[in-house]
């Protein structure tokens, strides 16, 4: 019975991993990059590298400049979102929605003048971050696909733990000089086991983060479809206030911001203004969360017409809300200092490697004998493997490259960067179809390595304020980023060399049983 249980779990592990593997790899890689989302965005807006940060004392004036712009350009909008200047983005980030269906408005302002900022149009790291949970398709579909993949990932993790019999004995084992299947199985096990707490945490919290999206029925029933009432009762947001229907001017924001800043020690992140021009207008100031595991930002609501403080929300969550806030907090790791952040990043890299080695293992375990033509399924998996495992890094490198090389005045420049990303990915996924499999791995790895070098070269060529061109003076972020790109280039060049040196699967080796074979067979090996 025990043997059969493990065999069925092995089957479940292999197939659950395969069906979602390619999407999971993309989710893992973009999610891992999202730990450095703010830094990526800053690198992609090099004009801001020299901009001095905005002092807290200037914030009330800055907020009034934002409102002045919105009164002129978005007086019909129901809600204004005002992103206040942050260390990584010293700009006003204005966003508004006029009515459902109409494209939302979005503009970046210079906080010192209130005029539109002279900064290149780019989505920056936010594109990778949104791709992580929406895949750049309509959000409803994207979130469902990501969620289903995450749920299946949990199945693959648990069944993988059951299948892996020698967790402790093989804890440190990585035999890279053995047959390919042995090395890849070791790499798969080691990356999976060493960061297992992270993998379980990140997958589970990833599902939980969108739990009310996947299972809205509880909230729908208990709150008669009014999700905002639910969020309000959970203490996540301040009380929603409908418009009254009587016009009234908006009181000056400056005094409200001063009062809010005096109340909360954290950094002011965002303002929302709802029902502008109505006597029921509301201004909500949202602050960065206090240092802690839970994701519990403080919100302060003001009456827009009178400027009176209405309520302060956040921090005092009830147990259930506190639990989910902590789970989400763990997932996004806002609390992580540079050292701990690097460890989270490393765990993300190990997760990506675990998915990638698992995918390759599936195809290695099914290589046919020399004289047999590979089946269509095997060819498909092999091509998809190269297309995702090498294609995605190639696409990310091209995304960075496009940011440096596209003309600054190009209309929809940010959109073109994203088009370059997908074009590169499609090309990178098609090339392996036309090349012999191992050659494709080798050539594509070299290509990614070259692209990473090209990013560094383009950075040096296009950025006049680059520290290397100014004898070390200037923004260190460019050095860090280019250093990371050089490291990636070295990694892929190393991989390409190893693939070229590898003599190919020898048909006489003893690795012909399925990878996840019965324990007796594996013990013999």
């Amino acid at each position, binding site marked *: 019975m025990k043997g059969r249980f493990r065999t069925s779990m092995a089957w479940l592990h292999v197939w659950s991993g395969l069906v979602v593997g390619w999407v999971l790899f993309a989710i893992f890689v973009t999610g891992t990059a999202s730990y450095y989302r703010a830094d990526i965005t800053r690198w992609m807006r090099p004009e801001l590298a020299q901009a001095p940060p905005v002092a807290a004392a200037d914030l009330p004036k800055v907020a009034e400049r934002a409102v002045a712009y919105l009164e002129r350009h978005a007086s019909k909008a129901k809600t204004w979102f005002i992103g206040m200047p942050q260390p990584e983005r010293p700009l006003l980030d204005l966003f508004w929605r006029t009515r459902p269906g109409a494209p939302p408005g979005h503009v970046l302002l210079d906080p010192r003048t209130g005029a539109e900022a002279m900064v290149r149009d780019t989505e920056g790291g936010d594109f990778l971050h949104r791709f992580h949970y929406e895949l750049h398709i309509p959000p409803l579909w994207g979130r469902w696909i990501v969620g289903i993949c995450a749920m299946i990932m949990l199945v693959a993790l648990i069944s993988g733990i059951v299948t892996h019999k020698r967790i402790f004995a093989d804890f440190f084992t*990585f035999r890279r000089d053995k047959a390919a299947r042995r090395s890849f199985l070791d790499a798969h096990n*080691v990356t999976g086991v*060493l*960061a297992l707490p*992270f993998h379980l945490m990140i997958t589970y919290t990833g599902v939980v983060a969108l739990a009310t999206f996947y299972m809205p029925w509880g909230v729908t029933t208990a709150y008669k479809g009014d999700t905002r009432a639910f969020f309000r009762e959970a203490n996540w947001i301040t009380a929603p206030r409908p418009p009254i229907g009587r016009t009234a001017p908006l009181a000056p924001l400056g005094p409200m911001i001063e009062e809010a800043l005096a109340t909360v020690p954290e950094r002011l992140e965002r303002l929302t203004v709802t029902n502008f021009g109505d006597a029921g207008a509301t201004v909500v100031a949202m602050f960065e969360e206090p240092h*802690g*595991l839970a994701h519990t930002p403080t919100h302060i609501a003001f009456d827009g017409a009178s400027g009176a403080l209405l309520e302060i929300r956040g921090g005092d969550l009830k147990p259930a809300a506190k639990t989910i806030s902590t789970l989400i907090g763990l997932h996004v790791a806002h609390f992580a*200092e540079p050292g*701990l952040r690097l460890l989270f990043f490393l765990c993300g890299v*190990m997760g990506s490697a675990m998915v990638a080695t698992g995918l390759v293992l599936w195809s290695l375990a099914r290589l046919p004998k020399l004289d047999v033509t590979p089946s269509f399924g095997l060819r498909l998996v092999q091509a998809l493997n190269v297309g995702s495992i090498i294609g995605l890094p190639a696409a990310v490198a091209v995304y960075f490259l496009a940011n440096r090389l596209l003309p600054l005045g190009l209309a929809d420049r940010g959109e073109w960067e994203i088009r370059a990303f997908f074009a590169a990915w499609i090309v990178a996924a098609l090339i392996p179809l036309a090349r012999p499999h191992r050659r494709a791995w080798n050539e594509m790895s070299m290509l990614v390595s070259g692209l990473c070098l090209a990013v560094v070269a383009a950075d040096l060529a296009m950025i006049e304020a680059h520290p290397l061109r100014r004898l070390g003076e200037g923004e260190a972020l460019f050095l860090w980023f280019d250093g990371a790109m050089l490291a990636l280039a070295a990694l892929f060049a190393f991989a390409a060399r190893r693939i070229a040196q590898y003599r190919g699967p020898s048909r006489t080796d003893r690795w012909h049983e399925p990878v996840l074979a019965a324990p007796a067979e594996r013990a013999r090996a």
Partner: protein
Amino acid sequence: MTPAILALNLGLSFAALVALCLSLNRHHAEIFGTKPSGRRVVLLRVLGWGGLVLCLLVAGEAEGWGFGPVQWVGAVSGAGAGLVLLLSYRPRLVAPAGVAAVGLAMTAGLLLHVA
């Protein structure tokens, strides 16, 4: 404070993992050419598990019991990844690295004590 605590955690967990790694026949043989004696296995395992528990206690005490376990898990995963690579590429350096990690942990601990 945090970088020193992180160094302490990484050093301590790396040393503990080296002890646990050497308590396994295969890795002991890879590094020293022989299987470990029974007494040595017991000693290494006590040291290894003791080190991991100590690391958790240090992390919890220093960072609070919210962040401590998070930092501990991260440090053990990170140290484990380093150890696996070292064991695979430079097995002869594993034992000296373990000793150096103890040194790193003690230096960081001393720094914390002074500060």
